């Protein structure tokens, strides 16, 4: 597909998904009962372990790198400020977004792409079911519900990484570290991070759906589209993060 045709197809699908999601929220039709919970459970169990592991490791890495510098100036306690703000406003949204692209985005493209290749989307259409609504609406609603849980988890685990390093490398007691984090991080910071992650989550689901619905070739196309979905999702996340940076700072 030519770039202009791709942008057009992406915009049409985005419009369709938004329309069908709002229509579903109003009329509660066109989606298999229980599917939203099923997707929410699948997204949560698939992403939570890796999100925890990655954010914990990033918390440790950033803390270790920063602790060495801060100690030179006797500013050990500011490690809590740095980790709290960096994690909640920037690193957690970015890392959760990227993890979602790898875990959720890839699986959505592979699943729906295979359905397209196996004529299942045509079968849904000829059963009078709108495939975009049937397949994408539960995923969009599920990601909207899953992201706040994942963000809360990732924020906690990321800061826990900082607590561990502060205790071992700087001798800062955990209660002191956490008090300092709470004194510097506001509810607005948390909501900013949550809002960014939500937008990244939507971008991942929409990009994955776009790549799945526009597969043209057979089984080979599914693999190609899955890779492209991850690349597109990560590119969108970085691009949107840049936009947020301009808008918020």
């Amino acid at each position, binding site marked *: 597909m030519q770039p202009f045709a791709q942008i057009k197809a992406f915009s049409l699908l985005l419009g369709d998904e938004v329309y069908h999601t709002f229509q579903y929220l109003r009329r509660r039709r*066109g989606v298999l009962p229980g599917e939203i919970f099923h997707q929410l459970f699948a997204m949560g169990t698939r992403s939570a372990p890796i999100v925890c592991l990655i954010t914990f490791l990033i918390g440790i890495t950033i803390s270790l790198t920063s602790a060495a510098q801060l100690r030179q100036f006797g500013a050990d306690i500011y490690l809590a400020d740095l980790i709290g703000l960096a994690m909640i406003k920037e690193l957690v949204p970015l890392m959760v977004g990227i993890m979602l692209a790898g875990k959720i985005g890839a699986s959505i493209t592979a699943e729906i792409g295979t*359905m397209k290749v*196996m004529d*299942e989307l*045509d*079968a849904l259409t*000829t059963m009078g*079911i709108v495939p975009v609504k049937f397949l994408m609406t539960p995923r969009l609603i599920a990601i909207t519900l899953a992201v706040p849980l994942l963000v809360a988890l990732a924020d906690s685990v990321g800061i826990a990484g900082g607590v561990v390093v502060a205790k071992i490398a700087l001798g800062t007691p955990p209660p002191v570290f956490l008090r300092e984090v709470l004194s510097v991080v506001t509810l607005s910071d948390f909501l900013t991070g949550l809002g960014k992650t939500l937008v990244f989550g939507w971008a991942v689901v929409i990009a994955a759906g776009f790549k799945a619905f526009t597969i043209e070739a057979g089984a080979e196309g599914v693999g190609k589209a899955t890779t492209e979905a991850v690349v597109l999702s990560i590119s969108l996340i970085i691009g949107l993060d840049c936009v947020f940076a301009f808008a918020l700072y």
Partner: protein
Amino acid sequence: MEIIRVRGLDVGYGDTVILHGLDFAVLKGRITVIVGESGSGKSTLLKTMIGLLPPLRGEISLAGERIDFGSERDLHKLYRRIGVLYQTGALLNSLTLFENIALPIRMHHRDWPAEKTAGRVRDMLGRVGLHEHEDKVPFELSGGMRKRAALARAMVLDPDLIFCDEPSAGLDPLTSAGLDELLSELRTAHGVTFVVVTHELRSIARIADQVLVLRDGAIRFIGRIEDVPASPDPYVQAFFLRKAEP
């Protein structure tokens, strides 16, 4: 009695016209088989009749009502009156056999009590001989069983007619014959109308009431299977006698 009437149908992709000026009727309670070699346009014709590909010109009427392919309402009406058996079966792999067959009911008849839905699904599974497999997922079934399950799903809302795309494709001769028997039995016992696209000559001989032969997007023969030998068209003769292309 006609259930489908096609008049002056031209179908294509972009500037390429694949089907030219088709005129024919599908009769109620009969099995109409569309045959032709690869590239003759039979799958394109099927896609158009099931509303997945809008025609360039011409019209299709279902039970006397003309279908407007640009109108979502008309297409939705069409989808409520037809069932489709796809070449791959196209069952949803994430659902069990029972859930697959119940899907059209759960989407279109949300007011049906669970017992009524279950009764209907089990009745369909019984008709296609799969009542013992309702908890299995599609990949646990053989190719023939998947097709029979897909047929049960196509029939679950009692459509006016069922379209079958290459039902014998990928099946061994015995399973293929079993599926043909099932189609004939459903036609005879339940008065189901079928439009079947295939190029399997044995299958055509077993099930066809009416045959439509396509070549290069045009109709070369339409009539009863018994009338094929009397056709003056050498292509039709060659096709059915499995001779090289004249």
